[in-house]
């Protein structure tokens, strides 16, 4: 037994995670010792924001290099850095929009920010995980912190119900994921993705049913996280119940992490046996898109509508996963980034307009907004049209990217269904603009208190959506480099 040598690891690789966890701790301590006055000034928000920015700076410094540490269980490469950037962006924006929200809803506790930072750590772990263990741990760290955040409004029953549902179903789905991992471990003898790929290559394709079953169960576990159709039922209730800021965070962060893990596993581990899982995922994609779009039409609550729209977007992303060629994977990355800007922007406006106690979240409450608050209305129209996939916005370029991938690898049928779905989605996204601009205000608008931070978040999202829509080439190149590693 050779002495257990401490695995050499490069500090740089996990620096962002260390920073975030450090700042998480700091926030908790500051919260304990801070007087009431500090809490009013909301010092914690700025501290956590500082943490996020620092982590981003350090993450940026190590682009271009590919580091394996912790005995090849943890890789830092362009792929995980791109996702880190998405996670940090969504966390930063969430902190900006939740700053005034949690004060208004009287849930202004320090743990809120700490939990957000911890869940970001979980996401980073998932994205950087080179073996199933790391991915599992990252998944759990993220999910547990978000279970708590969903139930943060303890006084409100719907928040509790949401967190209970999310917890029970989340744990249930993770059970399947674990069982899948164990089967893969059983049949291939390893949980490292590269070694699994090696094993499959040596065997010349998957013949062992246990391995296939394992792969299926992994699809189930990650499918839940990514909200693909048969496993999507938690999304509308949890998104509606959770505090809106957390809903925004949940609709972007975990979904991106889910796709990061999905791509990582299915491109490196099962990359060679594309035929096996391609049929399953395309069925999932079709079901997800159609259900998401079709039910969204029938919604009257804006949060539930945005929940179904996020399911629909998961459907489009699954198309890219099915295509899995050198356009599809960077397409997914680009689409996720665009999706982050669009979604968080939209939720920010929902927060601003939903007044105290979240009572104005019916779609009809947006009547006449167009000319009462022109800035908010224009922002919302921009986000809605971008999600609908109307050009000069980022949504269009993302969808264009994904449909090109689908057509390139010959899935014409899938592309056609995707295109029909985006036409259906135009109806309910357009309905928002109709109600805002073309309907007279139902009742008198009470004056809105808009904090500068949330305006900053909206502006960042608008700029992001337009920039990615009009000048997407730079981000596309970064995404393409990121995926070279995967092969």
């Amino acid at each position, binding site marked *: 037994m050779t002495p257990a040598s401490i695995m050499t690891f490069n500090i740089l690789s996990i620096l962002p995670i260390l920073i975030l966890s450090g700042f998480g701790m700091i926030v908790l301590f500051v919260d304990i010792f801070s007087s009431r006055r500090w809490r009013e000034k909301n010092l914690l928000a700025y501290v956590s924001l500082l943490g996020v920015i620092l982590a981003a700076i350090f993450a940026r410094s190590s682009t271009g290099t590919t580091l394996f540490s912790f005995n090849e269980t943890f890789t830092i490469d362009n792929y995980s850095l791109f996702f880190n950037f998405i996670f940090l962006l969504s966390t930063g924006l969430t902190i900006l929009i939740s700053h005034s929200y949690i004060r208004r809803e009287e849930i202004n506790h320090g743990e809120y920010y700490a939990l957000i930072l911890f869940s970001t750590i979980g996401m980073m772990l998932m994205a950087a995980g080179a073996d199933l*263990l790391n991915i*599992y*741990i990252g998944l*759990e760290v993220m999910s*547990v912190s978000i*279970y*708590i955040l969903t*139930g943060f409004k*303890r*006084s409100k*029953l*719907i928040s*509790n*119900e*949401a*967190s*209970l*549902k999310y*917890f*029970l179903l989340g*744990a*249930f789905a993770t*059970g399947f994921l*674990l*069982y899948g*991992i*164990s*089967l893969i*471990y*059983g049949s291939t*003898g*390893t*949980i490292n993705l590269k070694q699994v790929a090696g094993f499959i290559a040596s065997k010349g394709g998957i013949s062992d049913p246990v391995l296939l079953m394992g792969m299926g169960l992994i699809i189930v576990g990650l499918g839940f996280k990514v909200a693909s159709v048969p496993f999507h039922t938690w999304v*509308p*209730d949890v998104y*509606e*119940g959770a505090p809106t800021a957390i809903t925004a965070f949940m609709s972007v962060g975990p979904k991106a992490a889910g796709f990061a893990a999905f791509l990582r596993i299915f491109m490196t581990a099962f990359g060679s046996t594309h035929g096996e899982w391609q049929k399953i995922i395309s069925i999932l994609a079709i079901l997800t898109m159609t259900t998401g779009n079709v039910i969204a039409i029938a919604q009257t609550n804006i949060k539930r509508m945005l929940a179904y729209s996020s399911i629909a977007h998961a459907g489009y992303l699954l198309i890219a996963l099915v295509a899995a060629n050198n356009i599809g994977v960077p397409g997914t990355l680009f689409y996720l980034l665009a999706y982050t800007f669009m979604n968080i922007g939209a939720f920010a406006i929902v927060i601003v307009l939903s007044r105290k106690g979240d009572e104005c979240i019916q779609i009809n409450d947006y009547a006449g907004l167009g000319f009462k608050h022109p800035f908010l209305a224009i922002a919302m129209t921009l986000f809605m049209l971008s999600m609908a996939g109307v050009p000069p916005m980022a949504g269009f370029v993302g969808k264009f990217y994904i449909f090109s991938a689908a057509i390139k690898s010959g899935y014409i049928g899938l592309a056609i269904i995707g295109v029909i779905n985006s036409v259906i989605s135009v109806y309910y996204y357009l309905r928002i603009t109709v109600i805002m601009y073309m309907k007279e205000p139902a009742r008198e608008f009470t004056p809105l208190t808009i904090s500068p931070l949330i305006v900053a978040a909206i502006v960042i999202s608008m700029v992001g959506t337009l920039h990615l829509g009009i000048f997407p080439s730079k981000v596309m190149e970064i995404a393409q480099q990121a995926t070279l590693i995967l092969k």
Partner: protein
Amino acid sequence: MITITHYLVLSAILFTVGVTGVLIRRNAIIIFMCIELMLNAVNLSFVACAHYLNSMQGQLFVFFTMTVAAAEAAVGLAIIVAVFRNKETVNIDDINIMKW
């Protein structure tokens, strides 16, 4: 002689029991216990495969799943208590305000 398939079959059975438990029972705590049962079934299969493959990774994995299960238990029960305090019941059939 007990081979690996016996263990795997046992863990599959345990897993199915866990899953049916989640589907049938109404009490949130019981459901959570069934989920724990599923996780332990997975631990069993991990250990069996590790022993059979003569590699330590499986054993290592079990440690992590146990710690995670513990963390999950803490958070889950806290959530169930919060629900109970608010609605005086833990029966999940009463918890369906949000639908459609």
